[in-house]
């Protein structure tokens, strides 16, 4: 996955993500693609969650999956999550759950609950940072005011780090793939460097939904695992998504 929240020089916040999934879950030799990734693409749907006929939040999802991986609470915040690998992973959480220790939350149920019930960027950030989880994760959160964009690096129990947009430091965007931002990514899966190179090349002046789509369309940020790209603009309350393909030659991950 790749998620990015950026602030343009007029203070607009835009949030984009590629949802990559299906690694090592069966390779289709003839079509040079991952089997599960290809089976997930037809299931991609955009959802408008309503209460009293009013939109509460919108999301890009896989039909049949009730949790949330990508969503917007119009005019309030935008949220995506990326997978985080850790030895202290979900299987431990599941074991604890089976043994009756049920004070943790399933990751995508937490994001769904935050999108449904949180009413501000700060409230969302607090809940994502402090709620005990069954599995580690990265939460990428965008708000509706200048500077409101962050990456929350979570272990199952703790909020390890929160990296926020800081215009004074020249950090006009935050970008996450699947590795702790203070460490080098796995050398055979460095999508971060190419993505940041393209963001810096685009510049803060030219960043928009369009140019974020360009960044997310550049190989290897776009790869064989990429099922969809979603673009969100909190001030417009807009969410749009596109099912992707990565024609050969293309990186398997």
């Amino acid at each position, binding site marked *: 996955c790749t998620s990015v929240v950026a602030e343009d020089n007029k203070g607009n916040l835009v949030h984009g993500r590629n949802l990559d999934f299906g690694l090592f879950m069966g390779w289709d030799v003839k079509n040079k693609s991952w089997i599960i990734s290809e089976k997930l693409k037809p*299931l991609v749907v955009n959802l408008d969650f309503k209460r009293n006929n009013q939109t509460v939040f919108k999301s890009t999802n896989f039909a049949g999956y009730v949790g949330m991986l990508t969503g917007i609470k119009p005019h309030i915040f935008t949220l995506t999550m990326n997978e985080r690998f850790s030895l202290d992973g979900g299987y431990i959480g599941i074991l604890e759950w089976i043994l009756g220790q049920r004070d943790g939350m399933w990751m995508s149920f937490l994001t769904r609950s935050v999108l449904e019930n949180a009413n501000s960027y700060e409230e969302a950030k607090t809940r994502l940072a402090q709620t005990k989880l069954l599995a580690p994760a990265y939460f990428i959160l965008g708000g509706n005011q200048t500077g409101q964009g962050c990456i929350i690096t979570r272990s199952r129990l703790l909020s390890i780090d929160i990296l926020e947009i800081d215009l004074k430091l020249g950090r006009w965007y935050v970008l996450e793939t699947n590795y702790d931002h203070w460490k080098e990514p796995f050398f055979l899966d460095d999508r971060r460097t190419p993505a940041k190179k393209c963001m810096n090349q685009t510049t803060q002046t030219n960043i928009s939904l369009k140019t974020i789509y*360009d960044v997310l369309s550049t*190989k290897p940020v776009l790869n064989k695992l990429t099922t969809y790209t979603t673009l969100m603009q909190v001030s417009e309350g807009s969410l749009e998504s596109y099912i*992707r393909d990565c024609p050969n030659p293309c990186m398997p991950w």
Partner: protein
Amino acid sequence: TTQFIPPYTEECRTGMYPPNGPTFRGAVSWYTVDLDLPPSKRWTAVITDKKTDLIEMIQAIKDLANAFVPSGKLIELVDIMLPLMVDTLPNPFSDEIKGIAAVSGIPLGEVVLFNIFYEVFTV
């Protein structure tokens, strides 16, 4: 440097929007999920539309599981154990998952597996 290996990597793309060409497979349909409905009814429209694709995707996961455990015991475990687990999941998720299983006709355990896959995948 291990990631700059053209043609598997490329210069930063421009002009890709509006989405077009070989990297754009297609647009995504919109559905409404009415939170005023009982949880078990909320996903009926989506699942009625996507049932065939969902069944295909879950079959692909089952094929993969059977590749690892040809005896079929792994799928049996999913179909027997995970339905017992669904009631431990918090609402509304538990009832929404049951509703999806009912509409799609997919065994409840397999719908539960799909919904907790992020945690399971770490295995």
